[in-house]
């Protein structure tokens, strides 16, 4: 789905985290959102997903104004987001972390759970099967019964990504999916993201500091600095943009990705 951010501002006390920011994520794209630390990327994700109410401005999903909607309503419109610092359910097993995600679980109604248990079991079978596939795919299968709180940082990040695959949402905000995940596995995940976007029409907006990954995966790339959009375009073009280089304090951007 198309995400439109229109003139959004958000201040925390004296800090103007996002200022009059406008951008569009086109459906079917893998849009990169990059910028120095503190540029306001995560805050913007919070606003798009409904976790932070903007001081002013609107957020549109496929043309519909979703600014006043709480996060859970946005999920049901097809929008999912991950968190920069993984918010996994620490005292639940890895598998349970995934089982929470799919919607329409009759067992979430107490009366159904008490009196119509077979209906609960039927839906649960589908969800467990799906979770098994996702666990295999992420290499977490043998950890399925471990408590999620005991996972390493990178594994938590993977589990956070696993939830994306469990959700029915096809428009996904990923906040630094690669942070702490080993390169080989991340390359596999990048392949998966590309496949979902290009073959199944998912829309991604990805915040990422790993420029290799951004170069490989994202088109277009939007650059944020000091709470607003600096520029946007193909990675190769913005890499040479003077403003962008300055924003990143002296040309470290894409140094590794340079040919």
């Amino acid at each position: 789905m198309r995400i439109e951010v229109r003139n959004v501002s958000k201040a925390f006390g004296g800090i103007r985290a996002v200022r009059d920011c406008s951008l569009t994520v086109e459906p079917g794209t893998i849009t990169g959102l990059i910028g120095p630390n503190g540029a306001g990327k995560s805050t913007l994700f919070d606003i798009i997903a409904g976790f932070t109410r903007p001081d002013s401005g609107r957020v549109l999903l496929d043309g519909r104004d979703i600014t006043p909607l709480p996060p859970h309503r946005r999920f049901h419109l097809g929008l999912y987001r991950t968190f920069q610092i993984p918010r996994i359910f620490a005292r639940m097993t890895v598998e349970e972390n995934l089982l929470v995600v799919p919607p329409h679980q009759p067992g979430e109604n107490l009366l159904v759970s008490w009196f119509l248990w077979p209906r609960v079991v039927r839906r649960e079978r589908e969800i467990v099967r799906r979770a098994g596939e996702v666990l295999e795919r992420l290499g977490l299968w043998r950890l399925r019964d471990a408590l999620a709180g005991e996972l390493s940082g990178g594994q938590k990040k993977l589990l956070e990504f696993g939830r994306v695959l469990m959700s029915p949402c096809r428009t996904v905000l990923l906040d630094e999916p690669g942070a702490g995940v080993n390169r080989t596995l991340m390359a596999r995940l990048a392949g998966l993201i590309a496949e979902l976007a290009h073959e199944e029409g998912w829309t991604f907006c990805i915040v990422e500091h790993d420029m290799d990954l951004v170069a490989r995966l994202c088109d277009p790339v939007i650059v944020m600095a000091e709470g607003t959009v600096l520029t946007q375009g193909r990675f190769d073009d913005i890499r040479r943009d003077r403003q962008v280089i300055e924003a990143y304090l002296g040309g470290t951007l894409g140094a590794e990705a340079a040919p």
Partner: protein
Amino acid sequence: MELVGLASFLVFFLTLAGIYALVTLGLNVQWGFSGQFNIGIAGFWAIGAYTAAILDTPASPFHLGGFAMPFWVGALAATLLAAAVAFLVGVICVDLRTDYLAIATIGIGEIIRLVLKNEEWLTNGVRGIAGIPRLFEALGRSGQALAFLGFVLLAILLVYALVERAARSPWGRVQRAIRDEELAVAACGRDVRRFRLESFVLGSAIMGFAGAVHAHFVGFISPEAFDPLFTTFLVWVMLVVGGSGNNRGAILGAFLVWAIWSLAQFATAYLPLAWAGRAGALRVLLVGVLLQLVLLWRPQGLLPERPPPPVVRRDA
């Protein structure tokens, strides 16, 4: 003769402990399942007890009613009224984080106690409500006591079955997820408020039901019976000692702590006269020390929480 006395004390002890076990199961739904800090237990317990008392006693000039209803009417109304009050409180307070919810529920509990104490037309004030009919009267004194104990144990079994199923269901899974990471649950499309409200209401409804059973057991209730010390405080100790998040732990904790509490009462009878006046305080101290010890050595309680068995068995 001694033996008969002992047996009848044992029945009395088990019945009361069983009523505490019901309340503790209710608290476990709120705190153990979804991390809501209710310190107003006394209030919901009292609502249940008074509702049953007013509905089930024969007409009396001292308080509203009574309406001489059968036990099940009083118990049902007690459960529903406690649930309704919890719903109203929850709509306002359920968004509050644990510590603030704790403060809010202390206030609610205190308000309920003041109403019971001061609205004489309704509750006969501090003089309380007497003549609440006991169940199974036809069975004679000891038969009645035994039958009532059986009834309480059955009630525990029923409530246990309901809350255990709730804990193992996807509903319970969402509750535990909320306890760990509320925001991630919202990101997964769940209305966190709804779930927290439901567990708060369910827990309070169980407390209200326990209150109705309690009223019919003791036959006389007054605001004094709902002193937070004997209700809220003890129930919290029971849950923490038994193992919060574990329904069996909640039941075990209730029986164990009630045993210690009761034994302490015997022990203090042997205190020298000069100390006799402090017996009550010493009992509280003892339970307080017990709580400290458990928190130090076994903070998860005697039966720690475990992830519940999966809804469907997985084939390898």
